[in-house]
């Protein structure tokens, strides 16, 4: 692949006065990517949920897509875009697409999962009362999925912030792209070793994230309370939000709802109902649209054959030496992932149990933990690097640190939830039996936590592999630091435009993650589900 001459993006200013503008740019990109993710999720999830034949292709594909590391998408996206768009626009769109790849997959899974778990009788009620596709979407599907979609949106945004730096500054071959934004500000500040600028950048980022949390996510969570399905009031504490209460009580909002929103909604419902009448029942035979499906399948398979052909060509062109590097890199990264998981488990289990079983402690620590967890570890990474860069194996320590920072929160939140869910009766029983501290942990707490630990560890493990890409290869103080690892190989291959190496390392990373999930985590998860789930 031929690459044009060096392209430099606009210079990134490090003056604090540009931060507001940069923050707005980044927010805009995140928002665009999120809207894109949402549309993708709604369409893709719906196709997979309602069309059994499409499901057989789409769901495994999604499984693979979500384990493709973000940077591996870059060359494909960018080369594709630059061929049809001017450089500036192409870079901007590429950045949005990159953020999209860190947001879309879990949202799609959540939507698909919700659609497939809607109770049968609610579906039948919608059919017999002739709700058209729009009404069904509005009164059944969207409300049913609302809670899960909002939670997953929050996770998607966290994922987006994590990879913001990578999505706003990237090097492909000899081309160096920089888009003005918070991520590039932090990246340039780190590259120049400018501590003041790093502090400014992190401060702005935290402010932005906390503001979004308070003004968008908390109110949304409080609002989705109404979509809880259980018919009896559960004993879980409902989500609350001061901002949501404020909006609800504001007069102007009430007026707007009554005068504008309701009539508008009514008109919209009417016109959409007319346009999309209730679906007719699928015939027992399936003749219609068959040719369409066949055509789509044909194009898909032709594309696949072409792709596989190119793929094999690329695989064959990779020298043996680099294959060895890939194997070595996988082992090194695996070791780091394991170490970071062990460290995370070592501290999150005691702390999570303490928070989960002690409401007073939870009241104090929960908000602190939530804010700490929402700061993307990649932003703190350069500051941490400054500390350890002189030490032997400094980057190794820093890489484990970044993986840890990015993943420990999943574990902690799951363990807190698990500890809070241990039934009081069992705790009383343990006390009455006068179980010693160790016996109590062995017979009650650890078995009860097991399913939660597994759930948290699966997510954390996947996140750690993905984080290796930004953790093992860093541009810092004008130098490029790198250590042995599959993430470093992927980053380096991207930067140098070594596409065969990029392909092989990406594929082997995906294969490893999928294999570990299938052979290891899935079994443990099955065990957790069948033996340790409290009902």
């Amino acid at each position, binding site marked *: 692949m031929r690459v044009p001459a060096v392209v430099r993006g606009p210079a990134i200013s490090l003056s604090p006065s540009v931060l507001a503008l940069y923050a707005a740019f980044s927010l805009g990109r995140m928002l665009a990517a999120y809207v894109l993710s949402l549309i993708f999720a709604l369409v893709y999830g719906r196709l997979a949920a309602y069309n059994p034949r499409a499901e057989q292709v789409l769901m495994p594909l999604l499984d693979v897509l979500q384990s493709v590391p973000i940077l591996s998408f870059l060359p494909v996206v960018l080369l594709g875009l630059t061929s049809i768009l001017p450089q500036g626009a192409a870079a901007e769109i590429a950045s949005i697409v990159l953020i999209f790849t860190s947001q879309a997959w879990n949202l799609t899974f959540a939507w698909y999962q919700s659609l497939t778990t809607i109770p049968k009788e609610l579906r*039948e009620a919608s059919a*017999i*009362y*002739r709700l058209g596709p729009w009404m069904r979407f509005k009164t059944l599907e969207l409300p049913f999925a609302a809670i899960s979609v909002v939670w997953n949106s929050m996770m998607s945004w966290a994922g987006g912030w994590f990879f913001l730096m990578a999505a706003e500054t990237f090097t492909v071959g000899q081309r160096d792209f920089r888009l003005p934004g918070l991520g590039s500000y932090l990246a340039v500040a780190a590259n120049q070793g400018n501590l003041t600028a790093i502090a400014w950048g992190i401060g702005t980022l935290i402010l932005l994230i906390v503001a979004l949390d308070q003004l968008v996510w908390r109110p949304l969570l409080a609002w989705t309370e109404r979509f809880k*399905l259980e018919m009896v009031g559960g004993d879980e504490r409902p989500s609350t939000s001061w901002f949501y209460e404020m909006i609800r009580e504001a007069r102007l909002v009430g007026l707007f709802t009554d005068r504008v929103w309701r009539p508008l909604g009514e008109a919209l419902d*009417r016109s959409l109902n007319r346009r999309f009448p*209730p679906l007719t*029942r699928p015939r027992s035979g399936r003749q219609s649209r068959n040719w369409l499906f066949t055509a789509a399948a044909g194009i898909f398979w032709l594309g696949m054959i072409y792709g596989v052909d190119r793929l094999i060509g690329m695989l064959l062109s990779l020298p043996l030496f680099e294959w060895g590097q890939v194997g070595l890199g996988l082992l090194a990264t695996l070791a780091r992932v394991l170490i970071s998981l062990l460290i995370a488990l070592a501290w999150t289990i005691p702390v999570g149990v303490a928070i989960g079983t002690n409401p007073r402690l939870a009241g104090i620590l929960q908000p602190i933990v939530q804010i700490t967890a929402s700061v993307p570890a990649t932003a703190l990474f350069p500051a941490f690097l400054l500390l350890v860069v002189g030490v032997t194996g400094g980057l190794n320590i820093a890489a484990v640190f970044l993986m840890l920072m990015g993943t420990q929160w999943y574990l902690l939140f799951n363990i807190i939830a698990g500890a809070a869910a241990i039934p009081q009766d069992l705790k009383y029983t343990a006390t009455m039996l006068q179980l010693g501290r160790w016996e109590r942990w062995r017979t009650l707490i650890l078995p009860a936590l097991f399913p939660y630990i597994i759930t948290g560890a699966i997510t954390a493990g996947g996140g750690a592999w993905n984080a290796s890409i930004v953790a093992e290869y860093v541009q810092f103080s004008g130098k490029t630091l790198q250590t042995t690892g599959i993430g470093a190989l992927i980053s380096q291959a991207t930067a140098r435009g070594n596409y065969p190496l990029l392909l092989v390392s990406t594929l082997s990373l995906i294969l490893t993650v999928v294999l570990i999930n299938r052979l290891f985590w899935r079994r443990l998860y099955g065990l957790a589900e069948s*033996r340790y789930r409290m009902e």
Partner: protein
Amino acid sequence: MDQAAASKGAPLAQLSHISQIYTNGRKRFVAIQDVNLTVSEGEFVALVGPSGCGKSTLLRILTGLQPPTEGQVLYRGDLLNDVNPHAAIVFQTFALFPWLTVQENVEVALKAREVPAKMRTSRALDLLDRVGLDGFETAYPRELSGGMRQKVGFARAMAIEPELLCLDEPFSALDVLSAESLRGELLELWQSGNIPTRTILMVSHNIEEVVLMADRAVIMDKEPGRVIANLNIGLAHPRQRKDQAFLEVVDRVYGLLAGQTQPEHIELGAMPGELGRLRGLPDVPINDLAGLLEHLAEEPNNRGDLYRIAEHLGLDSDHLLTLVEAAELLGFATVAQGDITLTPLGETFAEASILARKEIFASRLKRFPFYKWLLSMLREADQHRLRRGVIQTALEREFPPDEVDQQLNTAIDWGRYTELVSYDDDDDVFYLEPAGG
């Protein structure tokens, strides 16, 4: 007096030669076999039968929610190929949208039919009024009791003024008292002509409920699901549960549903893999069965009327009939004309000690073809152990997919009780106990 019967008119909905067949590999399972049914205008028809006889599926086929494998559905003489726009369903689990208020839940059905906003509201309020829910318009379903939720279900169904109102076990998820009061209120609404709907089709597994409400009972049996009788209930409303005439009809339905105990080789059926029907294990807790036998042992002549036993023990007719089936299969009781009589073996069982009961039960279970087959498989297996999956695959050739799990679980339960067969839940393995070898 009998207004409903008097206004009975032309056929409204008709099922003609309906069959529902599932295929699993080469094996076919007939869930519903050649059912013909006509619901006429102004009629209250009840479909009654044991669980698994396909009555709820028939209701879905009749309303067009589900296409039948074979046969035709006619509505007013026309072929029905889609969801019937003139029908409404009241569901067993209410199927209300939890995020909509009571009023919105009723209105949503009208909105889908493009009824303008103002008319929608007035119609919804009027109906909620009639079912006795005025004052609860702004409540969410989760704030209501089961009975009140089902009232919302009724209001929603009536809001679209259906020609055919279908009720899918509408009272079975309610407690006894609210079910009873709701039945009364529905009958009153229907008979007073306060709702435009004249024709009702109700699916039920509760015999008393059917005799209390319907003009006609269509009685179904399972394996395969089919209609075994059509019974006109010629009783005037309001019906009294204690009336002799009422009890006679109940007795007759019990008689039809419980059937007559056949000679043992027919009752027990064939072995798996052989020609002929394999009898599954009835889904019955052993304690309940013992309780029934003990009750019978205290009756004069060890005999009882099924409907009286149901009343006396407060049992759902469906549950009682499953227990009776199990007692027949195991040779503990015989059934004829709606009466059940304890056999000498059943009497011995009822009076035996805990350990002796296990032995009696085990000796009967060993004669049961399905269990005989299971025991011989285990005897031939390496170390007398078999993985659950192996047995499951074998059973999938004999039972419909959703029944295999239930059969396995009952086999484990009964095996553990009799100490013939045991099961290791960690490894999903069946293994033979010394008593079973």
